[in-house]
């Protein structure tokens, strides 16, 4: 145990992952020999322009690539367990319980016709053997931890009655309510007004510190990276071109593409 | 997009093939029908298929095949006549309402609302009943009811097209309203209207034959599919063929138009 102390804090470990969409001559390579890792309680950013393959990696880690996307080679380890070799139903069991995800468009990631509470409770009961009342209590507690006002009355609200920022905070609570310690946040602030972006970033930082959640932050926004992340990977056209801790990469970008990204921002 | 129909669009080809087939059968009826559809042969009543009567004869000894072939004219051409009348009313009304907007639009749409409050088949039936039996009355009854839904659809399309940048650009460059309505709006709406029309022919055929089946449209002894079906009812046990063939003819014809419509729609979807 002590020998692998370093490895045990590694929640997600991706090795030499190659992803393709489609088959035959029209296939597109979304990720090419990508390796990265996310550690408990740390925020790791995966940066790149849209279309560079960031989201495909996130979906592959979730096992949600869809029908045309597939892993060509490489391995994805979650808490040390290799996921690719697992049968689908076993693999599914990790979703929500060990690995969770929030998406770009919070207002549409909540079901528009179902109240918030119903979506929380059904998620809790999927992963824990609790009754409706107990699940409701857990839901309220989670919303309160997330600092959401009037947690009780939120349960009966619908997504369209809430602001985008509120929806995203609820999405984070919803993602973590079953106790997942790894959160993939795919462009969590992109669809939101600048004024509410910082709320979300603060909440992500809080869950990382207080709830010891490891976050894989996928973004094209270097400002968000600078504010939030500790480690970062830079991705271009399906490949990781640079990685390191945020300070050293920002101060001494080694790859031309990273410099370009940094310059375009300044 | 060059050709009207791209390769591999199976529904469009199949539908087009059926529609062309039915059209040519209708046009060439006198050439291909083995006998006169109205000739009564009381000695050959309810006969089975033979060399003279490939599909047998009906209760008056008339050739079923010939009646089916001539029936194509009745069913298809009546449906097309209704469709043309409906388009002649609904396209100008819809374009006017959508393009001009304002009071005219509100007035027209209110009338459409009122007409659509009636079940269209029932209103058409009632109007046809009041006017008295006959093909012309039936066509009039249908057209006066059926245009409403169409006008609303076309108005919707026009409103969408009107908001397009190229229409605004044409306005800004000083084109006249009439020009824009024709050049941009109507042309943009032409294809969706074609798809709708193709689908609607089938619906109209079904409804027309249905009213004839009830005895309100074409009158005996006219060779019409709905009338033939209605005539076959007493012989459903003894000579089921009489009931099978006219129904097959209607179903095939309507299927052709529906397939064509589906193919055209698919085409538009892919083109987009």
């Amino acid at each position, binding site marked *: 145990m002590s020998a692998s102390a370093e490895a045990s804090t590694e929640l997600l470990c991706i090795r030499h992952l190659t992803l393709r969409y489609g088959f035959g001559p029209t296939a597109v390579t979304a990720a090419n020999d990508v390796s990265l890792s996310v550690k408990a309680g740390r925020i790791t950013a995966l940066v790149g322009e849209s279309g560079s393959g960031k989201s495909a990696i996130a979906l592959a880690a979730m096992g949600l690539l869809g029908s045309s996307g597939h892993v060509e080679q490489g391995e994805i380890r979650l808490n040390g367990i290799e996921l690719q070799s697992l049968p689908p139903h076993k693999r599914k069991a990790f979703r*929500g319980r060990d690995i*969770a995800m929030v998406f770009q468009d919070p207002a549409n990631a909540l079901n528009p*016709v179902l109240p918030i509470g119903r979506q929380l409770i059904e998620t809790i009961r999927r992963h824990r053997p609790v009754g409706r009342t107990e699940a409701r209590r857990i839901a309220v507690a989670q919303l309160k931890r997330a600092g959401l006002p009037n947690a009780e009355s939120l349960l009966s609200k619908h997504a369209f009655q809430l602001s985008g920022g509120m929806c995203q905070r609820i999405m984070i609570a919803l993602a973590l309510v079953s106790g997942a310690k790894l959160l993939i946040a795919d462009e969590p602030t992109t669809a939101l007004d600048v004024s509410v972006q910082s709320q979300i970033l603060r909440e992500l930082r809080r869950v990382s510190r207080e709830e010891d959640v490891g976050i894989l932050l996928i973004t094209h926004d270097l400002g968000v990276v600078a504010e939030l992340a500790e480690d970062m990977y830079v991705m271009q056209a399906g490949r990781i071109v640079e990685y390191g801790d945020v300070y050293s990469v920002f101060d001494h970008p080694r790859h031309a593409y990273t410099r370009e990204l940094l310059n375009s921002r300044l | 997009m060059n050709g009207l129909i791209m390769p591999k669009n199976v529904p469009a080809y199949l539908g087009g093939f059926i529609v062309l087939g039915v059209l040519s059968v209708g046009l060439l009826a006198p050439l291909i029908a083995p006998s006169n559809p109205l000739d009564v042969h009381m000695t050959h009543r309810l006969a089975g298929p033979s060399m003279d009567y490939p599909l047998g004869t009906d209760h008056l000894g008339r050739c079923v095949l010939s009646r089916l072939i001539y029936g194509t004219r009745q069913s298809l051409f009546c449906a097309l006549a209704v469709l043309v009348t409906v388009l002649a009313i609904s396209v100008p009304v819809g374009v006017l309402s959508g393009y001009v907007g304002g009071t005219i639009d509100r007035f027209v749409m209110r009338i459409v609302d*009122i007409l659509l409050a009636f079940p269209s*088949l029932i209103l058409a039936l009632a109007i046809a009943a009041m006017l008295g039996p006959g093909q012309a009355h039936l066509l009039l009854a249908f057209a006066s009811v059926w245009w409403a839904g169409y006008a609303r659809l076309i108005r919707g399309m026009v409103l969408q097209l009107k908001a397009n940048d190229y229409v605004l650009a044409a306005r800004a460059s000083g084109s006249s309203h009439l020009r824009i309505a024709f050049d941009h709006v109507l042309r943009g709406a032409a294809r969706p209207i074609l798809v709708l029309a193709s689908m609607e022919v089938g619906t109209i055929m079904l409804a027309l034959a249905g009213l004839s089946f009830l005895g309100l449209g074409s009158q005996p002894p006219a060779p019409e599919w709905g009338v033939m079906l209605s005539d076959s009812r007493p012989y459903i046990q003894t000579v089921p063929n009489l009931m099978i063939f006219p129904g097959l003819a209607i179903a095939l014809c309507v299927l052709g138009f529906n397939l064509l419509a589906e193919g055209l729609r698919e085409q538009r979807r892919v083109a987009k």
Partner: protein
Amino acid sequence: MVNLLVVLLGVSLITFSLMHLAPGDPAEIMLRADGVQPTREAVEALRQSLGLDAPLHIQYVEWLGRVLRLDLGLSLTTGKPVAQELLSRLPATAWLALCAVVFAALLSLPLGIAAALFQASWWDRISKLISLASVSVPAYWLGLLLLFYGAVRLKMFPVAGMDSPVSVVLPALTLGFGIAGVYIRLIRTGMLEVLERPYVRAARARGLREGAVIAGHALRNALLPSITLLGMQIGALLGGAVIVETLFAWPGIGKFAVEAIYAKDYVVIQGYVLLTALIVVLTNRAVDGFYKLLDPRMK
């Protein structure tokens, strides 16, 4: 509300005008229906009772006044009040329509959902075929075929009437099959669209069971357009019932109306048209309300 009143007023105006579409004197035509030239006195008496001698606008106001008191006039053939005749036959038509809708739902829900979940599979092809058949096969023909095979050949169902509980089966199949096709298609498209939505992916990402994702998150949203269509199809259902009821001798308002048409009983036709339009307007209102219950965004 104002809109509703305008529509109802327009409906009444059109219904009233129907009587005056008849070529010639409606009273004389009605009385001549059985082929005998009516006497002058009889025609005059009927004109009197229908109020046909007054100027049109006064006729309309008087007619509307009677209609508002639920007086639709007397049937020429039965001599009884038209309103009473129609209302006594309405339950039969309503029962037939309800059974048809249930059958259409039973057919279209599994087919539409399966076609969307297993795109380009045999399910998809079968559902496409059935939906094409549904919109292409005439109800009166399907009815005749069902009569021939179900009632005459197999003797499983009664040929006509509504004497036994299973009498409704064949007419309901005939009426329901005709509307099922549109729903198969609508449910398929709705499901395909909803399955692509972010909230379905998010539900999967939370580890919900596939069954819960489809039934709880996708289906409800995918069915919303079908609810709207059902409201709009009440008219088609009533129209279809005219033919199906005539074919199966089902004692509803549709068959009654067709008999009135044969007998040139214009008063009954008028009442029937007004009643069906009212049903359409009112059910559409009800469906709108129901829709708001299902989709809280619409409130």
